[in-house]
């Protein structure tokens, strides 16, 4: 397989232009950049944080660090760079022994704890009928994965990153990133059990 070192991944021309505009004093350029990447980046951060407020803080910190250190990484892909910073922030949090997801803390602004959402009976009728039940179960099952596998899973699913970019974020080889994804999928299948089989039969 042809491999490319992460350093060879160039920055998008539009991103480079927007960054240059921001440096020249155009605050709207930063707005356009944040808008462009907010969905995959915030979605990913949200998966690893303790609610929206916490995710908001990490999101802001990621952007501040990215812009501050941009001179050193001018040639890099911006989205990969943003995810790399988010990854480092999460590692720092783990080292500080601050749990990423506590089973007792609210998983979202609705104040429902993860432990409550894990139990099947806690799903609202709207969730059940709206087809969100399996999605919630996938999310809770993914939360039980080892951190590296969980990260690869959400970088791929939420961030939409390629395995080359994931490898860059995790500072590992593409094969390692792929293997982590495969382990994650295998565990998810086991966790979902009958629901996974039903899902396959329903298609």
């Amino acid at each position: 397989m042809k491999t490319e070192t992460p350093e060879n991944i160039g920055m998008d021309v539009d991103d480079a232009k927007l960054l240059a505009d921001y440096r020249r004093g155009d605050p709207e350029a930063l707005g356009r950049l944040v808008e462009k990447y907010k969905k995959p980046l915030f979605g990913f951060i949200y998966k690893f944080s303790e609610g929206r407020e916490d995710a908001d803080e990490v999101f802001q910190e990621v952007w501040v660090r990215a812009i501050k250190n941009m001179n050193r990484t001018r040639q890099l892909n911006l989205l990969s760079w943003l995810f790399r910073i988010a990854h480092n922030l999460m590692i720092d949090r783990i080292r500080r022994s601050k749990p990423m997801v506590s089973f007792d803390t609210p998983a979202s602004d609705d104040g429902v704890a993860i432990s409550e959402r894990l139990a099947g009976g806690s799903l609202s009728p709207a969730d059940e009928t709206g087809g969100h039940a399996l999605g919630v179960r996938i999310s809770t099952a993914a939360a039980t994965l080892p951190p590296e596998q969980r990260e690869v899973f959400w970088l791929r699913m939420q961030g939409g990153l390629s395995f080359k970019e994931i490898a860059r974020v995790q500072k590992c080889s593409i094969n390692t990133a792929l293997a982590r994804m495969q382990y994650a999928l295998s565990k998810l299948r086991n966790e979902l059990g009958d629901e996974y089989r039903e899902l396959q039969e329903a298609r």
Partner: protein
Amino acid sequence: MMNAKKLEKWILLEQTGELSPRKQKILNACPQAQVKRDELNALFSAVPDENTEPSPWALTRIHARLQNERRPVLLPARVWTPVLALAACLMLVFTLIDFSPESAEVSVASVEAVVQDEWTEEFEDDLAELESLILAMSDTPLDIMER
């Protein structure tokens, strides 16, 4: 016939457009490929798409933080006050002490003059005269042993 692990790996790479054309050809010829593709697609389509967004004021905060960090760093008063006081003291010291070469010569000359002082007869006579003068002015003997 490709094993299941390899098949899944190649399909994962195919989804991200990272599979080489050569492997893509092999994958296309594999009869189980479509079954595996469908299985993975079904799972991935069930993964919830997180629709949460950052707060509306996130951008304002990011911008404000970046602006603050661009400003020159001003030291707090508790740091620069003692520095200013020290500078004032040093100024005072340098103003009061005369470091000019002339004054240095004078001080050297006075030291030399002191060194040149000797216990001469003339000096002893002066001293005796001073002693007698003091004795004349006072009733008590100068030498404590004479009491």
